[in-house]
């Protein structure tokens, strides 16, 4: 293949690139590669270490945590996890959190998809200002909106329900979803739309059967970010719930009692909050690795 005489400009370029790449590979000594790996490795250690420590403490009893300092559990115990899984107050926290996160993802993505399509395909009165206004909602400080939120949801009778938290999280998740999706949609050529309309597709049918499959990975990435920001939020979800829809993050504050902090349970509960995130990243890893360039281009 490489010995044949190149005939087109592309193949000339291809061959030149291959030759250059081979030369570079030889000259780029193994030390460079090892340096890269070491640097990345160091960063990964920095990322893992605090999480490892949480894991370590979660398998120890409180007396061991406070009594002796060890790099791994000496008396391995799963009592901390057992406590969480047997007490409905505890495990319902995870169910509640997951419930409102999923609701929020569903609501956000279903209203953000048409809106993002409008922003990516049309000009209309106030479009730029609307877009910036959406972004300002990402910066709204939740701290002082707390009280109005509490009263708003109380007055419409949604206080302490999952849907209340899901709706409240729409405040920052819908703008974020539109922002991300708009970038993906703008990279789909407009000829696709036009061809479909000429072929007699109605807008809803075109949108669902042709357009959405084309931005599949965009939707995956968006869902990942929606999950992330709804799952990690504390202030709003804590304020809008009492007992029926209390998120795990606010249940965890129960570990500090008058007799001191229950470190083991705190650590175990912390470990369990990480797991849903890992599952979500696992599903979208290929979409992220495929590459996306966010933003209006």
């Amino acid at each position, binding site marked *: 293949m490489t010995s044949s005489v190149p005939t087109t400009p592309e193949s000339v370029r291809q061959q030149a690139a291959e030759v250059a790449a081979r030369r570079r590979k030889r000259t780029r000594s193994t030390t460079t590669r090892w340096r890269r790996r070491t640097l990345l490795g160091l960063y990964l250690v920095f990322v893992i270490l605090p999480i490892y420590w949480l894991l370590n403490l979660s398998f120890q009893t409180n007396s061991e945590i406070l009594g002796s300092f060890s790099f791994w559990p000496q008396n391995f115990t799963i009592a901390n996890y057992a406590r969480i899984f047997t007490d409905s107050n505890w495990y319902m926290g995870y169910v509640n959190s997951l419930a409102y996160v999923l609701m929020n993802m569903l609501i956000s993505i279903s209203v953000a998809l048409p809106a993002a399509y409008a922003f990516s395909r049309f000009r209309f*009165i106030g479009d730029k200002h609307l877009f910036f206004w959406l972004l300002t909602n990402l910066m709204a400080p939740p701290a002082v909106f707390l009280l*109005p939120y509490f*009263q708003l949801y109380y007055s419409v009778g949604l206080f302490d329900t999952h849907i209340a938290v899901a709706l409240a999280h729409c405040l920052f998740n819908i703008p974020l979803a539109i922002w991300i999706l708009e970038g993906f949609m703008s990279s789909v050529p407009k000829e696709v739309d036009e061809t479909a309309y000429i072929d007699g597709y109605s807008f809803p049918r075109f949108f669902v059967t042709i357009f959405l499959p084309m931005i599949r990975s965009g939707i995956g990435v968006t869902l990942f970010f929606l999950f992330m920001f709804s799952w990690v939020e504390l202030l709003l979800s804590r304020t809008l719930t009492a007992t029926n829809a209390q998120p795990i993050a606010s249940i965890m504050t129960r570990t500090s009692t008058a007799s001191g902090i229950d470190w083991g349970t705190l650590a175990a509960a912390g470990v369990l909050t990480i797991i849903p995130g890992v599952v979500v990243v696992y599903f979208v890893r290929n979409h992220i690795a495929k590459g996306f360039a966010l933003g209006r281009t």
Partner: protein
Amino acid sequence: MEWMVWTLPTAIFFSGIAAILLGMTAWELASPSVERRGFLPIATTRGDRLFIGLLSAAYIHLAVVGFTDISIWFALGTSVLWLLVLMRWG
């Protein structure tokens, strides 16, 4: 609505903003705005100039209220004047 603790001045304020937005929409429908370059360093449309005007009006009010003893009506007057200048020549 009771929990929103409305007062007359804030009600007037928000009605004013709403009226301006409606008016701008009507104006835009009647004669679409063209992006142009005035004394501001960037090219702006009518809506951009309105936004800049309102944002700077907020800062003018804050400065007057926070750091001087001048009446707030003076700040309001200055802001309206500045907004008009901005809309015409900005």
